[in-house]
Structure formats: C-alpha cells, structure tokens
C-alpha cells in the first residue's frame, strides 16, 4: 500500500508539472500565432491578403480562439471581411469536422465559429445541438442559429427561451439583440400572446430588446382577460403608454401584493397629475413595498412638486403613509 501511495503522489506531482509545462507551451504558441495573424486580420479589413500562411494541425485550436475573439470585438462589415479570410483559410471545413468530435471544447469552438461564419450548411446540425442538455453548448448553438438567420431561428428557439431555465435571460437577450429589434418584435409578440402563464413573465422581460410598443396591443388584450397574478404583474410592468393608466389603476387594489406593487409603479410611470388620488390609498397598504412604490410614484408624477407631496403627507392620518412619504421626500432631496 505504501508503494502505491508514494507512487500515486509522485504521479500526481509529475502531472501537475506537466500541466504547467503544457500551459507555458500553449501560451507561447498562442502568442506566436497572435503576432503572425493579428496583422493579417487587420489587413483583411481592407483587402484579403494575397497569401496566407498555412495553419498547422496543432495550431487550429489557438487560431480559432483568436479568430473568434476578434470576431466578438467587431461589428457590421468588418465581421464579413474577417469571414472572407476565414473561408480562404478553410475554417468552415475545420469547424464542421470539429462539430463531430466528442470533446466538448472542440464542439463548442465549432459551434461558435460556425455562428460567426453564418454557415448555412451547418443549420440542421446546429438546430439539433440547440436541444442538447448541456446549457453552454445548446445556448451557443442557439446563438449561432440566430447569427445565421434570425427570423427562421426564432421560430424554433422561442419555445426553448421559456423552457430552458438553464439559459440565463441576459444571454438570451444579448443573443436576440444581435438579431435586431425589427427581426425579434413580431415573433416575440406572437409568442407572448400564446404563452402559458408560467412562461409569460420570461417572454415579457425579453420585450425590452424588441420594439416593445408594438407588443402593447397584445399586452392590453391579455391584461384585460388575465386571471393569473404572474401574467397580470408582467403585463403591468410592460405598460408604457399613458392611455393605459386607467387599466393600471384598476389593479391598485388587487388582492396580490406583487400585482399592487406593479400597478402603482405603472401609474407612476405612465400617469399624470390627475392620478394623485389613485396613489393615496396604496400609501397605507399593509405591504411596505406597495407603500414605498406608491410614494415614489406619487412624488414622480409629472407636475407634482415636493411641496405638494409634503402637503399630502401632512394631511394624511395614517402613520405608515406619513413615514413612507417622509422617506421618499428625503430621497428626492438627497442627490
């Protein structure tokens, strides 16, 4: 047993040293490649270089890493120019090959590369990978699909946006914002209209990256018939048109406190001076957050001055309402 323990310990020590050596060699290789290719990448922005150096088998990983990170920093036409250089180097063939490998890193690299390349031939395989249980790989594949053809991709991806809770919302938002609000608004609005109550809040939050005003008619329709608190609350959050203030006001006395919070916030956001009275009763709500948002909403209404808020506070009998108004007045006074 002693020999085994000593042997394994020594092996682990050697492996640690080997890993460090490997890391140093990789860093040197990456440095060498960057020195060689970065000027060529820059040159390709004006014209494709006449001759390109060959890429050794062991250099492909570092090359793709460099190429992808350069792509991430570019926009518009520059991305397209860098793609031309990649095609000249045969990157598309290498990426397709990597896609079949078992290694997660290789597949991930391939998916990211094919997305940047907008490689239509990889569509079917990327679509299947978007359903992979691995969150990173599937999310990268979804992004690649959006990069290739946003409209077509959204048809397949919208159900995944709600079902894949392992896809962070900020990453989905980033992905669809790359496609542009024009491409996203229509499919997203449609999805919102037919969403199940549990999926609804997630989709409504994504409207931030779309032309949300175009989704308003759908939001209004849903709000008028909604019975689920999550749906009502999300709809209230999405209201941006002053014409909807009446609708928002009706929910300031809703039994669920988180609906009331969103209702008073919406009144504050889209309401006018005439909505002051609708915000007085929520100042005495049993929940602190409703009182606080009502006070903020009141103090933030157009043409309502701090002096007026002070007068309301002085007239009000409820201690909780007085306290919360005092706090919000102080907040307004402190920069």
């Amino acid at each position, binding site marked *: *047993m002693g020999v085994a323990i000593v042997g394994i310990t020594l092996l682990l020590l050697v492996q640690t040293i080997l890993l460090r050596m490997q*890391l140093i060699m990789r860093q040197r290789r990456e440095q060498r490649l960057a020195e060689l290719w970065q000027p060529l990448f820059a040159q390709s922005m004006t014209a494709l270089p006449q001759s390109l150096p060959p890429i050794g088998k062991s250099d492909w990983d570092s090359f793709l890493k460099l190429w992808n990170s350069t792509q991430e920093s570019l926009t518009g036409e520059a991305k397209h120019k860098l793609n031309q250089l990649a095609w000249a180097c045969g990157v598309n063939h290498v990426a397709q090959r990597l896609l079949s490998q078992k290694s997660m890193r290789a597949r991930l690299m391939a998916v990211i590369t094919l997305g940047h390349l907008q490689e239509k031939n990889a569509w079917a395989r990327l679509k299947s990978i978007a359903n992979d249980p691995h969150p990173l790989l599937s999310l990268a594949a979804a992004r690649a699909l959006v990069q290739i053809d946003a409209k077509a991709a959204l048809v397949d991806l919208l159900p995944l946006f709600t079902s894949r809770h392992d896809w*962070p919302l900020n*990453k989905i*938002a980033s992905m669809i914002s790359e496609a542009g609000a024009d491409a996203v608004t229509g499919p997203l609005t449609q999805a919102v209209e037919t969403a199940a109550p549990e999926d609804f809040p997630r989709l409504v939050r994504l409207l931030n990256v779309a032309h949300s005003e175009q989704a308003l008619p759908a939001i209004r329709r849903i709000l008028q018939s909604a019975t689920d608190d999550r749906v009502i609350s999300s709809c209230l959050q999405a209201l941006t048109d002053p014409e909807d203030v009446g609708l928002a006001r009706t929910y300031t006395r809703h039994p669920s406190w988180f609906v009331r919070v969103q209702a008073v916030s919406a009144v504050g956001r889209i309401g006018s001076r005439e909505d002051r009275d609708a915000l007085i009763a929520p100042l005495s709500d049993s929940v602190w957050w409703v*009182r606080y948002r009502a006070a903020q909403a009141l103090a933030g209404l157009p043409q309502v001055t701090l002096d007026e808020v002070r007068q309301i506070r002085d007239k009000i009998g409820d201690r909780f309402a007085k*306290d919360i108004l005092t706090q919000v007045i102080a907040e307004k006074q402190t920069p």
Partner: protein
Amino acid sequence: MNWAAWINGLQWFFLLYFIAVNVGYILLNLLSIRSLRNYMEAQGLADLPAYSGYEPPISILIPAYNEESTMVNLVRSLLQLDYPEFEIIVVNDGSKDNTLAVLQQEFSLVLFPEAYWQRIRGKGVRAIYRSSAHSNLRVIEKEHGGKADALNAGINASRYPLFCAVSADSILQRDSLRRAVQPFLENPLTVASGGAVRVANDCELQNGFLTGVVLPKSGLAMMQVVESLRTFLFGAMGWSELNAMLIVSGAFGLFRKDTVIEAGGYLTSTSGEDMELIVRLHHMLRLKGIPYRITFVPDPIFWTRAPESSRALKAKRANWQRRLAESLNLNMPLLFNRKGGAVSWLAFPFVMIFEWLGPMFEVMGYIFMISGFALKLVSWQVFTVFLLVAIGFGMMLSVTALLLEELSFHIYPRTTQLAKLLIAVLVENFGYRQQVSLWRFMGLLRWIFHR
C-alpha cells in the same frame, strides 16, 4: 477484554478511521474534478456576451463593530465594484470607536428618515444615514447585538432581492459580484452562492482591490494557501456538485433575501451564524420539499489576510471548530432525515465524523500510535502503515488540490510559485496539519465544556 485486545482494537479503529477519512476525501475529489472540468468549459471560450440589465440588483451588507481603521477603504473599494445595480449598507453595530464618525466624514452622511421595515426582529436601530455623495450607500446605527443581529438589521433595510454578506476584512475583485451572481442567473432555484476564500498576504492591492497575486512570504500563511486550495477546490466544489454544501464562507456569500427571511434570518445565539444559516437553509428547504440550489463558485473572487502568527491562527482554527460544532448541533434533526437527501445521508454525517469530531480522532490517533510505538505496544509494521495512511494520503490529497488548481485557474502563474507550492504541499503534512488538528481539537473541547 484484556489489554492486548484493547490495544489491538484501538489500532484497527484508528487505522480504519484514517483510511475512511482519506478515501472519503478522494471520492469528493473525483466529484470535484468532474464539476470543475464542467465549470472550466464555461470560462473564456464560451463566455457569450451578456445583455446588461437582467442581473438582479444586490444589497451588500457589511456588519461593523469597531472597524474605524478598515471601513473607509472597504466601502471605497466596494463603491467601485463592476455591477449594474447595487447598494451598500454598513451596519454599525454599536461600535465603541469612531466607526460612524469616520464614515460620516468620508462619505458625507446625512440623517435619513427611513421607514424601517423590521421583518427580522433584533436590537433597536438608532438612526439611518444616507450618503449625499453616493446615493447607493446607507449606514445603519444600532445597539450592539453581535454580527448576526447586525446582518439581520441590514437585511431589514435592504431593498434588493439578493444580498451579499461581506466581512470587514474582505478584499474583493472588481468583478466579484458578477461572478458570484452567475449561479442565480443560470438556475432560478439558486438560493445561495459562496465563493472560494484565497490568501491575500503580500498580494498587490490598488484602491482596495487585488491587482497582483503573489505567494505569501510567511511560512504559516503559505501553509494556509495549500489548506485553502484543499478546502475549497475539492471540499466545497465536490459537495456543491451534490447540492449538499454545508459551509459557505461567512466572509463572502450571496443569498436570496426572501428565503433567508423565511428561514428567520441569521441566528443571534451562535457565533457561527454564517455556517449555521447555510445548514438551516438546507434543513428548511429539504424538509419542506422545496427544490433549491446552494452553489459554490470556484473562481477566486474573495481574498483575505491569513494569520501569520501561531497564536492568531490557533484562535482562528479553534473558533472555526466551535462554530462548526454549533451549526451542526443546532440542526441535528437534519441528520439521517428521510427527506434530507444527500445533505442528510452524506454531507451531514461526513462533516460530522470527519470535520466536527475528526480533530479529536486525529489527535488521539497520533498520540495512541506514537506512544504505543514508543512503549512497544504497537508493532513497527502497524506504525508504518499508520504513517503511510495519515501522512502519505495527506500528501496525496494536497497534491491533488494543487493539480485541481493547475487544471483550473492558475492564479499563481510563475514557475517559481508552482515550485514553492509543490514544496509546501509536501511539507505541510509534517507538523502543520497535525498542529491545526490539535488547535481544532482544543476548540472542540472548549465548545463541549463552555457552551
């Protein structure tokens, strides 16, 4: 039973104990390798751009008791954190020094008439101040009630759905919050995340942030570097994989506020409030059958200065042992609870036997074997096997921790640093580990006799 049978039985007991503890850690290690490999795949290469504005806002809570010398720098550095929306709440827990005065002067604090919402009961809040220079900074002035009470007051005053408890001696990185919040973004069931504590002695600091990593010059601090690799890279990482992590560093933890309030907040009757809260969250959520995740973030996001004197380290380790004992003891019904899953059936018994009672068995094992060998009651064969198991396995585990570090973050990039670490992982098994076990055993005894 005669003497010989007793001696024989004890030999077997200690040998089997040392084998069990090491095999347990090796299994944990295997889990960590898998978990760390998956985690590392997410780094760098697959770091897809994130659309800002979807990160949940965070309230940073800093309990302060007599911290006039450290608080200003800490707050200044926290104000520069790279995160879209956060607030800082310093809770001055009845300090007897000038903590409040220095904060007032440095951050232009003004009295603020806040409608304080006391969701968790605690000692009286005397006043709330708000900085006129930084609208996201508030200071709560309250009666002294201890760290847990101060944190509860901070929770009461916090506005955001997540809160981050930070101790006054913390050194963060600019992106610490961004990294710590990742589990909450990736899994909505996450209720808490904790980060790895790294040793900051002799490291370069700029504006309160860590900018350059070097190994400590002090030998004792160097040993703690290895210890922290072992504790966090394969301890916490392995348990996190099973969603059974029982210990999150009190110096930096991110929590879902509503869940903590539902659990009753921090417990004021224990000195191990941070550890106890995590165990209680497991306890509450497992027993209620609510799905949840408590996740470990292995990135180096939080740094602290390790003690460089034996006396300070002894006090720290003894204190840690007492806090662990309190946390487990207060949640004993979780042990072998049929609803408790991996926490009840794996993590709790493991931590109880190998961490809580472990120092006692280790110290007694060494005393028994060494004295038995000296008195010729223990044969040299048994003694050799014992040393191989106790020290040889220990070295193997320390080397594995270093290997995990090498597979992941390479926070010590120079070859000379690796060489020093390699020496440290071997040397720490000859004296340091045994000394720490003894200090922890003393902490355990103090808990038994003074609770």
